[in-house]
């Protein structure tokens, strides 16, 4: 059985490396982006093999899905008409030979150093797994990754929410053009898909959020699912944003940080230290913070993709 697993791992790894190489190769940019998304999914599979299902979920949803969608949106915004290839995707002549040799040397050095570091590990370092396991009962949840993210290292998650907020502020200030709209926006098959799949996805997001306390899941994965629902709704023309929606979106962006920091302030008053939850009610605190975070992350990821100005409603016709 062991040899079969090793063969599977070797095949999966070969697939990951091959697809990653194709994702960065010059030439057709659309093909590269699709290869990148496939690589993300294969890497998620590899991480499941390494007993990291929470991270695999996040990589599949955020690292491959949302990032791939962002790439596709940028690719679409750049002109591809014959005779006026853009700076950003034109296939330039290959880099000069000396640069390629220098780059190869740099890459080989990096890989060599990493491999040497990996080979020098002999498994005697205990890591922090035992320390986490010893205090897991006091953390309020039984999923160790959620405990680390939302309790033991809650500061890091708080700062991560700040990074998300900063990113959406920058992207909303910079965007020159609205996000693309499909042509045509509505059709019976797409509408049927939306009616069936979107409510189930919302339910799945709520389930993932609740599941994160004792099984792989959590706020980030649930937030990514909800963001996908929002993107499909807006991109497919199923929901036309009204006048107050931009303000509501901005409120949603800040909601996560406000909720998390507010919880920190409350715990400062109640327990004397920021983000030290009262031990009896730790699970409630964590779930409440995660719920607020899920909504905010969903709004932020959708906002990163869609931009501030959504395209005006069109009945059909050529893309710009």
């Amino acid at each position, binding site marked *: 059985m062991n040899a079969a697993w090793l063969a599977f791992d070797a095949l999966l790894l070969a697939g990951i490396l091959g697809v990653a190489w194709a994702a960065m190769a010059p030439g057709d940019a659309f093909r590269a982006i699709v290869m990148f998304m496939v690589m993300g999914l294969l890497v998620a599979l590899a991480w499941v093999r390494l007993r990291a299902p929470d991270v695999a979920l996040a990589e599949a949803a955020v690292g491959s899905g949302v990032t791939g969608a962002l790439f596709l949106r940028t690719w679409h915004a750049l002109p591809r008409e014959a005779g006026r290839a853009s700076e950003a995707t034109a296939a330039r002549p290959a880099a000069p030979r000396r640069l390629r040799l220098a780059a190869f040397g740099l890459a080989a050095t990096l890989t060599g150093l990493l491999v040497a570091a990996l080979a020098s590990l002999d498994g005697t370092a205990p890591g922090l797994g035992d320390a986490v396991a010893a205090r897991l009962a006091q953390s309020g949840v039984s999923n160790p990754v959620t405990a680390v993210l939302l309790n033991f290292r809650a500061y890091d998650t708080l700062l991560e929410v700040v990074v998300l907020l900063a990113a959406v502020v920058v992207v909303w200030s910079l965007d020159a053009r609205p996000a693309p709209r*499909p*042509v045509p926006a509505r*059709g019976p*098959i*797409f509408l049927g*898909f939306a009616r*069936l*799949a979107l409510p*189930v996805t919302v339910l799945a997001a709520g389930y993932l959020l609740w599941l994160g306390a004792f099984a792989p899941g959590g706020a980030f994965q649930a937030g990514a699912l909800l963001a996908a629902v929002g993107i499909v709704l807006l991109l497919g023309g199923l929901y036309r944003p009204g006048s107050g929606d931009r303000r509501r979106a901005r409120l949603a962006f800040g909601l996560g940080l406000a909720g998390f920091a507010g919880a920190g302030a409350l715990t400062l008053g109640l327990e004397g230290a920021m983000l030290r939850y009262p031990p009896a009610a730790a699970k409630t605190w964590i779930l409440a913070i995660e719920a607020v975070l899920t909504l905010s992350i969903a709004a932020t990821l959708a906002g990163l993709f869609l931009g501030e100005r959504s395209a005006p409603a069109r009945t059909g016709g050529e893309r710009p």
Partner: protein
Amino acid sequence: MTFFDILGGALLVLGLGFFVAGTVGMLRFPDAFCRLHALTKADNLGLALTALGTAVLAGTWSAAVKLALIWGLVALASATSGHLIAGHALRATDRRDRP
């Protein structure tokens, strides 16, 4: 190796065969529509057989229900995306054929 193990394994291998057929079609067929045809048809059946085989191997009813839900959602998503890709390809060919 119980009966269920053999049954589950056989279903998985059968599903794998359909996936291979779909992939060969994607690599060998001349244009986008033929490729879509091969992919959606073969992968749909491959997915159903794989989900069935995994449910048999898992053994519990809760796992079977979850797998049925996964199968339904993936089938829905692949059908919709096949339709959207075909529509896009159709519009692209129309634009090119126009004088």
